[in-house]
């Protein structure tokens, strides 16, 4: 079963991707609004550019989840001293740094299309950036801190996770589409839902598949190293 999980996730992801593309481009309605009085298009209609939403929001949610997974795995690692937890934290962060870069890039594209600026210091983007910075910091520490890297990184993940509610409160709510219960996700039209959830499911599959592959890679490296050491001890190799 373990061996199959990555291929299964990949296949699901691939199917989901095709389905998402279909749903996003052919099923979900174009977003626009007609002003009742004048019969003309309302200025904030996004049309085709709104499709980015289906790529952008799932990534942003996953970024948020990634910080928590890294934080909780790090707590488990410090508690149980089992390297498996450390692998999960490190693997999740590695993949999330790439995904995070994707969020910020797609967010920029959307912003340019919608508001004609490449970046804005508004809540959602700021929050994504800050979460991403925590993850990048973790990755840098892991790479450059030397032998104690695992502990420092674990500390950063935990402290970063605890900081998330504070970051959330601090960024406030401004021009970005609303979040939470009144948020865009919850109130999106029923017509948007299939496309959105399919897209979300697809990216979750991709993300999980990548993380699992990364963790497996780390474990394989470790096993090879240990075998090599045993061989050296036994004098089988020089």
């Amino acid at each position, binding site marked *: 079963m373990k061996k199959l999980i990555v291929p299964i996730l990949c296949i699901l992801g691939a199917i989901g991707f095709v389905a998402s593309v279909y749903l996003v481009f052919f099923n979900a309605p174009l977003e626009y609004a007609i002003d009742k009085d004048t019969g003309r298009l309302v200025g904030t209609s996004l049309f085709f550019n709104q499709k980015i939403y289906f790529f952008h929001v799932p990534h942003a949610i996953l970024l948020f989840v990634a910080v928590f997974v890294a934080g909780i795995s790090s707590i488990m690692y410090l508690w149980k001293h089992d390297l498996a937890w450390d692998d999960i934290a490190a693997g999740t962060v590695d993949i999330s740094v790439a995904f995070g870069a994707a969020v910020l890039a797609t967010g920029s594209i959307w912003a340019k299309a919608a508001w004609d600026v490449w970046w804005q210091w508004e809540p959602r983007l700021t929050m994504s950036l800050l979460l991403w910075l925590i993850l990048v910091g973790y990755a*840098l520490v892991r790479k450059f*801190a*030397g032998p*104690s890297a695992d*502990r*420092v990184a674990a500390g950063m993940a935990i*402290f970063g996770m*605890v900081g998330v509610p504070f970051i959330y409160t601090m960024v406030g709510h401004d021009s970005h589409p609303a979040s939470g219960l009144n948020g865009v996700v919850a109130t999106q039209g029923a017509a948007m839902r299939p496309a959105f959830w399919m897209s979300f499911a697809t990216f979750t599959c991709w993300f999980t598949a990548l993380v699992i592959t990364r963790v497996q890679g780390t474990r394989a490296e470790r096993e090879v190293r240990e075998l090599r050491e045993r061989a050296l001890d036994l004098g089988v190799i020089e």
Partner: protein
Amino acid sequence: MLRHALRIAWKDLRIEVRSKEIFMTVAFFGALLVVIYSFAFQDKSAIRAAVPGMLWVALAFTGTISLGRAFDRERENDTMRALLLAPVPRLSVFIGKAIAMGLLNLGVAVIIVPLLALWLNAPLFAYPLELAGIVIAGSFGIAIVGSVFAATLLKARSRDVLLPVVLYPILLPLFVAGTKCTAALVAVNPDLDIAHYWMDFVGIYDAAFLVLSLWVFESLVIE
């Protein structure tokens, strides 16, 4: 435990008072920052709005440098090892260090704040109590989180640059809250409600991270 923590804090303070090394160099560095800021903004009216940010950037930089230097001292003769070896709760090492660093940060702030007010004509002292509150809370917040990581990084490579790399993302909410609070105090129409909101924010932040630090300190610092 508190007794030992105070003993350790007192030791740090005594060393610092004697040599004044960190205090003088870092306070001077802070003053230089203020000078640089004043030249960074050519538009004089923009300066006033930027003062809150300048204050907290200065506190961020000076705080990190002080931490780095103070913990470097513990590396010089391997005294951190000696402290961790002592038959005292290891948390008292953390608490002692955090107290000493908080007071050191506060000392540096006492130099920087008046300089900012003087050279940039900012009415920082309009509400001294609130300002004192937020600066104290900020200084100790930096000390608490900073002591955990400075101690953990003691034996790491690249620790000089990694300390800010680790600290700044985590301390960002504290810096932003400090800036917003200070901004509310020096604004043309000061808003004490907002200032108090951000003071509460930093208070909760400090409490949350203090508890977290007490919880994980030993796991992070012992190899």
